[in-house]
């Protein structure tokens, strides 16, 4: 196996992708720990205490019965959780099993689904998918809660195959009908809030699904679909694209798909294999992805050591303009990602949100123990803290000239203006929209 050079650049990359970016201290610690230990700490997060986070959430006194309150609750977790991969993966599953508030219309149901996704974020995919198939928010979202044998509702069966397990081209219309029949009678009760199976609504007939004939129920459908190699490939390539780089070749994906299927669809096994693969640290991977609006905001918060709950309060509105409303993805396929994130309105809003972040940066927290006496050093310091991010020489020159046209560092209030201004500029750079 190729040895992976373990250095500041790769450690910072791992912490960006496997979490929401490391602080200078966290990156230094990861370099010290080595790759295996760092990945181990990221993926075996159950032993990390969340008591500090829970205290903070209590203090914030959020109204999680509203969707904005719920979004603030989750953003606080992403920003402050000592288990960054847990939140990163929960976000991945929210995008994968994309369910939207616009139709579910009940924040309590969305919270319940979010907790399900979090509790099984690195668990077993088949278990997760069976649970999601019984989840009230999903049952509403894809209309299965009213599906009866007289004429099955096809929505859940179709999207389960197209988007959740197999992908286009690996099932027929007959398979959609059969899956839909198998999920008839899967509904829920409001009081108490729980999954409910109504036998009288269920189609008990023999169903032909992916060439196998039987009196299949919903969980059979999930198990059969997830035994296909196409399923292994789909999940492996989607997670690889999320964590490493987009459009991977089959030679890279197939061994990962086998690891995943051989493990009985263990997400932890797959994520661990990806995070330790040489491809993860290849030039194709480093800085190759476009930050989502959430990546942009949460990584800025973490790397700039921002600790301001009021700013979190204002985030959901800005994220909506940037195209990412938590708990309300555009449709069941989730967010498109990539360059689709970048359009004139969203880019402008990223710049303006960055203004809000830079306004509360406390430079003393970053300058402690460092000698920064020139504009060059000031610019390089913030480029390092926020990455380390590489920019073209002329861009660095422009940042330095912004701090001082004559090479001497300003003082007092003028210095603070430039310190915050340079942060605002860096967060607005094309390079910083990448990660």
């Amino acid at each position, binding site marked *: 196996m190729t040895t992976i050079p373990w250095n500041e650049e790769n450690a910072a990359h791992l912490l960006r992708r496997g979490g929401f970016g490391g602080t200078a201290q966290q990156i230094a610690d990861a370099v010290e720990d080595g790759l295996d230990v760092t990945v181990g700490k990221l993926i075996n997060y159950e032993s990390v205490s969340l008591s500090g986070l829970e205290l903070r959430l209590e203090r914030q006194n959020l109204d999680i019965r509203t969707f904005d309150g719920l979004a603030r609750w989750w953003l606080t977790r992403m920003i402050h959780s000592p288990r960054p991969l847990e939140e990163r993966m929960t976000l991945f599953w929210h995008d994968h099993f994309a369910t939207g508030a616009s139709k579910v219309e009940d924040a309590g149901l969305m919270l319940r689904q979010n907790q399900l996704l979090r509790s099984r974020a690195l668990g077993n995919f088949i278990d997760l998918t069976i649970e999601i198939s019984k989840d009230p928010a999903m049952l509403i979202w894809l209309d299965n809660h009213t599906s009866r044998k007289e004429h099955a509702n096809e929505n859940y069966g179709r999207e389960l195959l197209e988007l959740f397990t197999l992908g286009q081209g690996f099932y027929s219309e007959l398979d959609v009908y059969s899956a839909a029949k198998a999920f008839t009678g899967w509904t829920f009760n409001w009081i108490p809030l729980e999954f409910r199976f109504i036998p009288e609504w269920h189609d008990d007939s023999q169903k032909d699904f992916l060439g196998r004939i039987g009196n299949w129920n919903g969980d059979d459908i999930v198990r059969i679909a997830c035994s296909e190699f196409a399923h292994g490939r789909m999940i492996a390539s989607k997670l690889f694209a999320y964590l490493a780089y987009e459009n991977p070749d089959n030679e890279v994906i197939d061994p990962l798909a086998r690891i995943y299927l051989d493990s009985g669809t263990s997400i932890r096994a797959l994520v661990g294999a990806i995070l330790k693969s040489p491809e993860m640290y290849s030039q194709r991977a480093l800085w190759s992805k476009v930050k989502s609006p959430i990546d942009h905001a949460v990584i800025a918060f973490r790397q700039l050591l921002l600790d301001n709950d009021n700013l979190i309060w204002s985030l959901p509105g800005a994220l909506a303009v940037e195209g990412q409303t938590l708990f309300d993805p555009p449709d069941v396929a989730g967010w498109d990602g990539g360059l689709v994130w970048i*359009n*004139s*309105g969203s880019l402008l809003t990223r710049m303006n949100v960055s203004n809000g972040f830079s306004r509360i940066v406390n430079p003393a927290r970053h300058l402690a123990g460092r000698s920064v006496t020139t504009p060059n050093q000031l610019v390089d310091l913030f480029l390092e803290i926020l990455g380390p991010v590489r920019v*073209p020489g002329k861009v660095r020159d422009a940042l330095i000239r912004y701090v001082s046209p004559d090479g001497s560092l300003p003082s007092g209030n003028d210095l603070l*203006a430039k310190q915050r201004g340079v942060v605002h500029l860096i967060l607005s750079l094309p390079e910083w929209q990448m990660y």
Partner: protein
Amino acid sequence: MATTRRDFLKKGTMGVSVSFLAPQLFTGNVFGAGSLPGKILVVLQLDGGNDGVNTFIPYTDRRYRELRPTLAIPEAQILEVDDRFGFHPSMERLRGLYNSRKMAFINNVGFNTLDRSHFRCRDVWQTADDSYGQVQRGITGWLGRYADLYLDQAASSLTTVAIGNRNSLGLSAEGGLSATVSSVESFDVQTNTQFPADHNAFLSSLELVYEESRTGEREEAIRKQGGDTFAAIDLLKSIPPPLPLSSYPTSRLGRAFQLAAQLAAGNVGTHAIWITTSGYDTHSNQLNLHTKLLADVSNSIAAFQEDLSARGISDRVMVLAWSEFGRRVEENASEGTDHGKAGTMFVVGDAVKGGTFYGDTVDLSNLDDGDLRTEIDFRSVYATVIRDFYGKDPEPVLKGSYANLGFLETGPALPRRVRTRR
């Protein structure tokens, strides 16, 4: 702090001084001497798969009530237009436009490989390419290709505009970027109000860091988007305000059409506007949902037409509404309908030969696996718009020859060499 952007903005064609000129002074001539004021196509995407059967309703087809015991609209409520079709009752105002011959339906529109997948169908409609499966790099949208072939995209950063917070694949071009605008008011760069004296230095530095081209493909794409965005800021400031007594619904869709009218009236070099409205995937509880959706569409478009007429520009603008597929004719047991195939499109505007429908009648006894059969390839609709509304040859845009459906007043003659190919 909002920028006054004179010092910030680019020397480009649009320059800074647009807002200092009285609008009438540059009507039609800012974007190329002698060119006519541009035609503006407003594309309305009904996202999720609109149920054409309950939009323009074949209410006398006996199968209609058999297949839809709970979803069939009672005959007394249907807004009849003839002995075969009638409007959904929530579309009173659009029926008014139909009666005044400014609106037409096109029945049974689709394509041969329609597969009931939202995602593939949506991509096919936007790229006008049905060989197209997964999202591929470099694929362009049909209006993006139109812009590449026939428009000077460098002349305006608002050549094509998506209203909302997402861009549209349909506008994706090789030679330019479309703008994405959700509100004019917030479309500006904010600087740190703690340090007002730093304002100008910050803005000029921001401009500078977006000037240097990048080697990374994606970084360069973002850089270009930034440059275009800065240019669009001033241009957007020059568009006229909303009309005071307009009748738009307060919905997101109503506001989008209101902004579209401002853009059209602003003469800012816009040729195509994309508006997406969602919620059409009515697998359950369709009666209520669909009523609200169609009312919103009907009221928004009717207000838009009034707005355009009041501004005297209704001859330059038309609306084309589409959806990725129609829905299954037979209802499911959730009082909804599942994904189908062919659907119903509609067009609105002075240029439309309206008050009728195009394509054959809808036959609910002759279905394709429960769905309406495709009779008209959707590219014929695009071809008709490109030819007769824009006055251009559609073939290079659509990469093939498609029948003209004749639903528009005929546009200017094409150059002879092109005409001979038709």
